[in-house]
């Protein structure tokens, strides 16, 4: 066996706190990073634009939702709304701020903070409302944000079609592209920016999980009364979770609009997207960061794969409506089957498999 969990001895506290304490894990992570940074950008433009970048965007939103729902236990259906704030925020910052001040990464960060603040406002009721009742707050956020951007045309720069394309100069990065001689609007450059943000934020989330703050989140999730008895300020913890989560979602929205589709379109931030992201979270496994990514990949690719398989087998013998309906049916059944097999999602499935491998060849 090449991969083993034994033979690892820590000699100081710093080593004990490493994210990947195992040497083999480290190697895998480094290989993975090399693959993502060196090989991925050289694959086809289609691969990047239709698969990888959208997965990065929705995956980041899933990680964000995970912080709120998986870690802190506050159910939210407003994810798409918060993404919408991020997308519109980024667009308006890029549009209205002086060009030499604003660049896409800065605008993303600022609109992420803005989305976080919006999240805190809609998170305020969470101080009093618990459980499924909290849905009303996040749904209010979802519908209100959507309506707000739809009603006030100023945010869309008075574009009557409701979709505004992103001007090429917005990918300027203070003239960095010209300097390096790289097409910054091209998909490889977009991909690298999205990837870097996602890796950075995933790393942050992973660390958050192990920090004092993360433990506060989890104690509020498991039993908020017990947490408050322990001296944890429950309202503050909940609001902080809302802020961090919506910060992630806002940035994810910016990435989705700017780095993936290349325009700001209200229609893609409807309630359905909130559900899709919740699906990704549940299928991936609540509370697991890597699970969120797995869930995002799976849920995003499943309909694509299904349509593709259907097309190759039946060669378009059925019309699109039939294919869509059947796809919905299969998808629904699949989700139910997966939840029955493992309600904890991919993360739990993985943990069980690992446990089985440790015991192998004994059954238990």
């Amino acid at each position, binding site marked *: 066996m090449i991969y083993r969990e034994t033979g690892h001895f820590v000699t100081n506290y710093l080593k004990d706190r490493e994210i990947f304490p195992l040497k083999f894990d480290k190697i895998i992570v480094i290989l993975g990073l090399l693959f993502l940074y060196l090989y991925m950008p050289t694959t086809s433009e289609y691969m990047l634009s239709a698969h990888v970048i959208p997965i990065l965007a929705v995956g980041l939103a899933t990680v964000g939702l995970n912080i709120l729902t998986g870690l802190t236990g506050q159910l939210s259906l407003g994810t798409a709304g918060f993404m919408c704030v991020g997308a519109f925020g980024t667009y308006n910052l890029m549009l209205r701020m002086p060009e030499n001040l604003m660049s896409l990464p800065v605008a993303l960060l600022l609109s992420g903070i803005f989305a976080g603040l919006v999240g805190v406002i809609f998170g305020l*009721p969470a101080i009093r409302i618990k459980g499924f*009742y909290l849905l009303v707050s996040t749904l*209010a956020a979802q519908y209100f944000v959507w309506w707000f951007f739809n009603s006030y045309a100023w945010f869309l720069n008075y574009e009557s079609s409701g979709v505004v394309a992103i001007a090429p100069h917005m990918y300027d990065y203070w003239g960095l592209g010209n300097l390096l001689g790289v097409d910054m609007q091209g998909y490889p450059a977009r991909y690298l920016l999205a990837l870097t943000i996602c890796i950075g934020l995933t790393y942050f989330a992973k660390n958050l999980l192990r920090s004092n703050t993360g433990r506060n989140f989890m104690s509020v999730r498991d039993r908020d009364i017990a947490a408050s008895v322990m001296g944890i300020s429950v309202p503050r913890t909940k609001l902080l979770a809302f802020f961090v989560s919506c910060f992630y979602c806002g940035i994810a929205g910016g990435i989705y609009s700017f780095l993936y589709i290349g325009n700001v379109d209200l229609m893609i931030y409807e309630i359905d997207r909130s559900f899709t992201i919740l699906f990704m979270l549940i299928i991936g496994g609540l509370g697991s960061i890597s699970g969120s990514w797995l869930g995002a990949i799976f849920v995003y690719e499943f309909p694509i794969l299904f349509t593709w398989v259907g097309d190759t087998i039946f060669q378009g013998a059925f019309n699109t409506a039939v294919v869509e*309906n059947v796809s919905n049916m299969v998808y629904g059944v699949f989700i139910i089957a997966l939840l029955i097999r493992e309600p904890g999602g991919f993360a739990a499935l993985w943990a069980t498999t690992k446990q089985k491998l440790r015991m192998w060849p004994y059954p238990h």
Partner: protein
Amino acid sequence: MDWVYLIEVLVGGLMSGVMYSLVAIGFVLIYKSSGIFNFAQGTMLLFASLTFVKMTENGIDFWTALFIAAGIMVIFGIATERYVIRPLANQDLLALFMATVGLATFQEGFSQFIWDSDVHGLQMSKFLDIGLLDPAPIFVSDHIPWLDILIPKFDIFASLVAGSLIVILAFFFQKTRTGLSLRAVSDDHMAAMAVGIPLQTVWAIVWAVTGIIALIAGLLWAERVSVSFTLIEAVMKALPVILIGGLTSIPGAIVGGLVIGVGEKLGEIYLADVFGGQGIELWFAYFMALIFLVFRPQGMFGEKLIERV
């Protein structure tokens, strides 16, 4: 202010509130008995009414079609319990919620796959000779001279149906042994199993009853709007209603529906201009629910949260 107009608005609001309540009742029934937040309520509405409409379009008479559709809904409810809810018993509530979203996705595809995705109209007065189904409205001024408003007869019919549903269900929950078992199950699955309450049977009953309620609500909605994809969105309308009323209370579903119905109408008339935009009904109901919940976190009639550490 023209107060006759106000009364007309209020009455209109109450009537649309009844429609919300009809969807909400099914929701509450399932939540109360199993703690499951059933997102498939909207697609059940669609499936039931689509099944019914397609049958009548193919020349089957009203009562036979109603009977068959009810039968299909019962079978569907029992199958849902058997293949979705039972294997997931005792799992995390979020997993169960997601399973019902999966169920909704399946049902959305399924009902449009076996039937079609067209928009169908439904006019019950064509089949039933009940005075209340007559499209002509009631002129209240005929009876009360100073009150010059119109009430569609159909709305009164819908309210009567909703009212009788409540009475039946309230009796069922408070007085029968099955009702008490339902409440016990919703409190603690494990303990209910331990004292020998047949969980599966209880749930199968609930899902079957919910299926029939979905059929009734679906037909009434269909008469008002039409049978189409949009029926699924009825579920989003019912959400604030049950949250205001309290997830576990059937009278709450009714009162919540009326509050939302009236509030929405008033908001549309008096507040839309303030916000300078159309379509505030998208979020207005949720804001109302939010304000209610801040004062009463478990809804108006919801069970008070009992917590001990």
